[in-house]
C-alpha cells in the first residue's frame, strides 16, 4: 500500500473539512462586515487547498496506491487532475463574487464543491469499476446539491430534474457494471480488457455495454440522455453551471476513455457504430436546438451538448492521436467555457437576468467584459488564431486521417452553424442600443483571472505544440 499517491486527494479532502470547521467557528460574526470578510476567507482557504493540491500532483509518482487497481496514478490521471484543480480555482474565484449577496451559507457551498472536485480526481484515477462508480456518485450527489443551492424556482426545478434523471442513469450504469462483472468475473478495467481479448464473449455483452454507454452518456450530456442539461444549467448558480459544463464533462469523458479504451477496446466493432450514431445525433440536435434559445445559459447548455458531439469523434477514432486530440480539446473547451460563465456571473449580478435581451448595448457598459466574451465565444466557435481552432483542427484532422472523413465534414458543418448563434450574443452586446448605460464594475481579482484566460486562449492557439505533445504523452499505452 502506498498512500503517498493519494496526497493530492487527501489535501483537497482536508481543505474541504477545514472550510467546514472554519465556517462553523466564524459564522457567528458580530457585524455584517466581519461576516463578509469571513466568507472571503473561506474562498481563499479553498483556493489555497487547490493550489497545494496542484503541487502535490506534481510531486506524486506514478503507481498503484493499493494492492489492486482501485487507485491508479498514471500520466493520464495526472493530466486531468491538473485540469480539475485549475477549473476548481476558477470556479471558486467566480463563486466568491457571485455568492456574496445571494446567500449567507458559504461554508457548505465550498465544502460540497471541494468534495465534488475530489470526486472527479478519484474518478480519473479509478482503474476499477466499483471505485469508479462511487466517485462518480460523489460527483453526481454534490452536483445535485449545488444546482439547487440557491433555492430559486428554476434552481429547484433543475436540481430535481438532474436528480431524478441522474438516479435513473446511475442505476442503469450499475446494472451494466453488474452484467460486465458477471461475464468477466472482474471489476478491474484492465482485467476486463484482457478477458475480452481472449474472444470468449457472451450475448449479454452488448447489453452491458449499452447500459454502461447510457450511464456515461448521461454524464457527458449526449443525445438522447441530455434532457436534464438545459434546466440544470439554467437553474444552477452560474459558477456551478461553469463547473458542470467543464469539470463534470471533462471527468466523464476521462472515465469514458479509460473504460472504453482500456476495457472494451478488444470489442471495438461492437460499439463503434453506436458511438458514431450518438456522435452525429449529439452534434446535430445540440447545435440546432441552440439556435432558437433566448436565455444565454440555455443556449450555452445546448452548445455544450454539441461540443460533447465533437469530442465523441475522438473516441470513435480511438487511436493515441485521437485521444490526445480529445484531451487537448477538453482543455481549450474548459478554458473558454469558464471564461464565458465568469463573465455571465459578473453581468448577471448587475442586470439580474440571463436573457440575451439584457445584454443589449453591453459594449458601452463594460468594454472589457465584452472583449472577454468575444474571445471566449470565438474560441468555442473555433476561429483562428484562438485555442478552440487548434482543438477542432486536431480533432477533425485526425478524424480524416483515420478514415472518418464524413464525421469531420459533419463536425465542420455544425461548428459553422455554432458561429451563428454565438455571434447572436455578440451582436446584441456590440450592435444594439443600451437601455441603461451604467458602468459595470467588478473586482480586480476577476479582471486578472479573465485576462489570464484570454492570454491562455491566445497562447494555446498560437503555440499549441507543447500542449498537444503533453496530451500525447499522457495517453497511456493501453493497446
Amino acid at each position, binding site marked *: 500500500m502506498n498512500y503517498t499517491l493519494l496526497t493530492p486527494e487527501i489535501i483537497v479532502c482536508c481543505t474541504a473539512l477545514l472550510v467546514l470547521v472554519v465556517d462553523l467557528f466564524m459564522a457567528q460574526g458580530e457585524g455584517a462586515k466581519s461576516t463578509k470578510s469571513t466568507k472571503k476567507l473561506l474562498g481563499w482557504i479553498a483556493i489555497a487547498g487547490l493550489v497545494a493540491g496542484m503541487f502535490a500532483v506534481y510531486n506524486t509518482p506514478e503507481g498503484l496506491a493499493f494492492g489492486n487497481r482501485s487507485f491508479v496514478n498514471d500520466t493520464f490521471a495526472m493530466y486531468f487532475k491538473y485540469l480539475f484543480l485549475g477549473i476548481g480555482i476558477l470556479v471558486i474565484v467566480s463563486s466568491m463574487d457571485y455568492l456574496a449577496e445571494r446567500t449567507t451559507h458559504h461554508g457548505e457551498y465550498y*465544502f460540497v464543491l471541494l468534495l465534488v472536485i475530489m470526486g472527479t480526481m478519484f474518478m480519473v484515477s479509478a482503474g476499477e469499476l466499483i471505485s469508479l462508480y462511487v466517485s462518480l456518485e460523489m460527483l453526481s*450527489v454534490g452536483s445535485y*446539491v449545488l444546482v439547487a443551492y440557491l433555492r430559486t424556482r428554476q434552481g429547484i426545478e433543475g436540481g430535481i430534474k438532474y436528480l431524478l434523471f441522474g438516479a435513473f442513469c446511475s442505476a442503469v450504469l450499475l446494472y451494466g457494471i453488474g452484467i460486465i462483472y*458477471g461475464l468477466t468475473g472482474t471489476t478491474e478495467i484492465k482485467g476486463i480488457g484482457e478477458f475480452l481479448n481472449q474472444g470468449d464473449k457472451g450475448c*449479454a455483452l452488448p447489453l452491458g455495454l449499452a447500459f454502461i454507454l447510457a450511464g456515461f452518456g448521461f454524464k457527458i450530456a449526449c443525445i438522447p440522455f441530455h434532457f436534464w442539461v438545459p434546466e440544470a444549467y439554467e437553474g444552477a448558480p452560474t459558477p456551478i453551471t461553469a463547473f458542470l459544463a467543464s469539470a463534470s464533462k471533462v471527468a466523464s469523458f476521462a472515465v469514458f476513455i479509460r473504460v472504453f479504451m482500456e476495457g472494451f477496446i478488444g470489442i471495438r466493432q461492437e460499439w463503434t457504430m453506436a458511438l458514431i450514431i450518438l456522435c452525429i445525433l449529439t452534434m446535430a440536435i445540440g447545435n440546432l436546438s441552440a439556435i432558437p434559445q433566448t436565455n444565454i445559459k440555455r443556449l450555452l447548455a445546448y452548445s455544450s451538448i454539441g461540443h460533447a458531439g465533437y469530442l465523441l469523434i475522438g473516441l470513435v477514432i480511438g487511436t493515441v492521436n485521437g485521444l490526445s486530440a480529445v484531451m487537448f480539446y477538453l482543455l481549450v473547451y474548459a478554458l473558454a467555457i469558464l471564461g464565458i460563465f465568469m463573465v455571465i456571473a459578473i453581468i448577471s449580478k448587475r442586470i439580474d437576468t440571463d436573457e440575451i435581451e439584457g445584454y443589449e448595448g453591453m459594449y458601452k457598459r463594460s468594454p472589457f467584459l465584452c472583449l472577454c466574451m468575444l474571445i471566449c465565444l470565438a474560441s468555442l466557435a473555433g476561429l483562428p488564431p484562438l485555442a478552440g481552432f487548434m482543438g477542432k483542427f486536431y480533432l477533425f484532422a485526425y478524424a480524416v486521417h483515420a478514415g472518418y472523413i464524413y464525421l469531420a465534414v459533419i463536425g465542420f458543418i455544425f461548428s459553422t452553424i455554432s458561429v451563428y448563434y454565438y455571434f447572436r450574443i455578440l451582436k446584441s452586446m456590440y450592435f444594439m442600443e443600451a437601455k441603461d448605460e451604467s458602468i459595470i464594475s467588478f473586482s480586480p481579482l476577476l479582471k486578472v483571472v479573465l485576462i489570464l484566460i484570454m492570454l491562455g486562449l491566445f497562447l494555446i492557439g498560437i503555440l499549441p505544440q507543447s500542449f498537444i505533445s503533453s496530451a500525447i504523452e499522457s495517453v497511456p499505452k493501453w493497446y
Partner: protein
Amino acid sequence: MNIDAICSLVLSNMAFFVLAAIGIVCGVLVVTVRNLVHAVLFLAVFLLSVAGLFITLEAEFLAIIQVFIFVGAIVVLFMFLIMLTYKVSDMAVPQGNRLKGAAIVVAGVLFCLIFYIMKAMKWNEAAPVVTITDDVARIGRLLLGQYVLPFELVSFVLLAALIGAIVIARKGE
C-alpha cells in the same frame, strides 16, 4: 437423485415463485395505488420479498441488511415524510401521466430484450458451488481490504449528501 434432494429442490423453487409473485404484485401496486401511505406499505412488503429471495440464495447477510436498511430505515423515513407533509397522507395522488402508455411499452420491450438475452446467455456455470459459512467475515475483509477506497469514499458521499440536504431544506434566509 434421492427423495430428499427432490423435495428440497421443489421447496426452494416454490419459495422462489411465491416470493417473486409477492414481489411483482406489490411492486405493481406501489406505482398504481393512489394513496401514498398504502404505496409505501406495499413498498415495504416488496422489499421484504426481495430479502426473502436473498435468503433462498443463501445470502443471509445481504437479506438482513436489506431488512435493516431498506425496510427498517428507508420505508420508515418515507412514512415520516408523508406524515409530516401537509395533507398528503389522506389525499388520492394520481401516479400516472399522459405518457403512461408509452412508458409501459418501452419498459415492456426492454424487459423482453433483457429476458431474452439473459436466457440465451451461457453464463459461466462451471464455477464450483461452494457453501460459504463465514460470509460476514469475508465481506468485512473485502470492504476493509480490497475495496477500502470505495468504502471510505462512500462516507464522504454520505457527508456531502447530508450537508447538502440540510442546506437545501433550511428555513428561509
